[in-house]
């Protein structure tokens, strides 16, 4: 590796960024152990908020609802998005159509949310998790398609031709050659959809029904009403889970790299 040259001053913005990103998070974690109910004053160490959090039905149900939507949207968006990318790459080759298919990824969420609410109201659909799921698939599919399209740009078509020349049918070629070749992009796209859906608030806020709030909606109502430290505990827990996933993923990568 080439040595790092004359970049000492360059680390300053890096550290600034980290301080900026992590100071609020440190505050949250510290406050989650605050015995006081008022989040602005320190009254000693306590873990009671974690206990209350685990008993909070609304949060638990919100978490489950979010998981249902995120998993469902990931499965559907990944399937549709992958097919869409292959179709665009092989059978259309039109930059305009490609842009059209990817627009949901960059359209302002508010515009999409309101349009969908209007559509559902017009058709007379009862709002619920199914409508949130439908909505999340829209932008999720675009992200998956974008990632897979990029991968298809590098793909080598000769493998598929060879497969067909050897007498494999299109379906068998699709599952034995095409899908495995695209797998890294498909997984990346799926993870992207899952992450985005998990934390999606605006579209869910407009398209969700009354009895099935997702976790971001539950948190929104908590932030507006309760200034309870329970919410800090929730934030700390969510971060802990994220950290664990990331670190274990890193470990697994290192293991597979070593093999």
């Amino acid at each position, binding site marked *: 590796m080439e040595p790092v040259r004359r970049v000492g001053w360059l680390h300053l913005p890096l550290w600034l960024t980290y301080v900026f990103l992590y100071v609020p998070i440190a505050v949250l974690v510290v406050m989650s152990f605050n015995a006081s*109910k*008022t989040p*602005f*004053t320190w009254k000693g160490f306590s873990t009671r908020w974690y206990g209350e959090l685990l008993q909070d039905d609304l949060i638990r*149900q919100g978490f*489950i*609802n979010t*998981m*249902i939507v*995120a*998993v469902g949207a*990931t499965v559907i968006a990944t399937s549709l998005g992958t097919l869409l990318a292959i179709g665009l790459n092989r059978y259309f080759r039109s*930059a305009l159509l*490609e*842009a059209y298919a*990817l627009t949901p*990824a*960059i359209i302002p969420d508010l515009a999409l949310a309101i349009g969908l*609410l209007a559509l*559902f*109201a*017009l058709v*007379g*659909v*009862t*709002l*619920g998790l199914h409508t949130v799921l439908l909505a999340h698939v829209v932008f999720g599919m675009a*992200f998956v398609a*974008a*990632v897979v399209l*990029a991968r298809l*740009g590098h793909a080598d078509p000769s493998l598929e031709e060879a497969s067909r020349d050897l007498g494999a049918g299109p379906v068998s070629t699709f599952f034995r050659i095409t899908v495995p070749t695209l797998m*890294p*992009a498909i*997984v*990346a*796209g*799926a*993870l*992207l959809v*899952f992450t985005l859906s998990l934390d999606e608030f605006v579209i869910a806020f407009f398209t969700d*029904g*009354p*009895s*099935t*709030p997702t976790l971001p909606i539950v948190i929104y*109502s908590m932030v*507006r*009403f*309760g*200034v309870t430290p329970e919410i800090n505990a929730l934030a700390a827990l969510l971060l802990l889970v994220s950290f664990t*996933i*990331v670190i*274990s*993923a*890193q*470990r*697994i*990568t290192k293991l*597979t790299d070593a093999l």
Partner: protein
Amino acid sequence: MRRRSPLVLAAVATSALILTACGSSDSGTTESSAAAESAAPAESAAPAESDAAAGGSADLSGQTLTISNWAGYYPEDLATQVEASLGTPVTIANHATNEEIMAKLTAGGDSGFDVAFVSGQYAQALNDAGLLEPIDATQIPNLSNLYPEATQLAYDPGNTFSVPYTWGTTGICYRSDLVDEPTSWMDILEPSDENKGKVTQMTTERWLALPALKALGYSINTTDDGQLAEAKDLLVASKADLLAYDDTTFYSRLVSGEANEVVAWDGWCNYGTAENPDIKFVIPKEGSDLWADTMVILKSSQNKEAAHAFINFILDPANHAWVAENILYKVPNQAAMDAVGADLAATYANMGYSPSDLLKQETVVDLGADSVKYTDLATEVTSS
């Protein structure tokens, strides 16, 4: 080679990052399947809404109730208590403001709610829109527990489509240890130097206008364009000295010391008093409103018997008293207030207001087509 669109590049940059962050594809798939497993039992745990539609008989155990109430405006285990008493599974959703629940109820189609909690003037508007089921008094014998005054409120005399849940007035909630007792709405609109940047107003439309209209000596139900324009100017000018607009957490701002004086509903001021006895409530000399928060049954409900039974449950003196003790708002239930009112008034002075005290204030009513004047006023004030 084909020029790749910038969108694709951007998505790749993002996804590459997430891939690096997550490591190999193996970890990705295990994560998804783990998530799928945790999601699976949830679907069976969620209340089966199809049962409700299939039911429809008068047997309440076959009905389900979906209720929307303000967050923190009911005892925490209300759903459990109702379920135990009526045998009906209950889901309580939260809304933050009248506007939020109105938007959902009027969006078209079946909102999915059986009972909604809305303020009186909104109940009136919902009824005008044909969205409410008439109240069948024979199914709610506990209606007789209401104060006679509470059955004749201007927005719905005779309780034909709504039943009051709580009632009260709007005033100024303040820190008596930090500032003198405010006497006028002008203390909020043009605060003294020590209170500049230490006051909050409400932004929900009718209550945004209230302090200015009363300070100017106008009716809170005025539809006069000139009067509303004057009120608007006063409110826009007052923004300079405002800490924030706050409809929901104003009392905690008093507790933390962020604010000295806030526009507040009487009941929510009590939440502050509970944490700091120096937090007190006063009705400014120009007068204020009489509001009622009501329970209404949606016409689209498939569970109307259970909905009536729910309202009857609330109006039971013991239950309504339990509500009052929990949320610290006055309930318009004579038997309930006779039981707990005096005790609560010892700590929370405004719990002692009598019906005749409240009736001295002006009752908020719906203004029909002129209601949009208030929504436009709110939009214009907050946009300025």
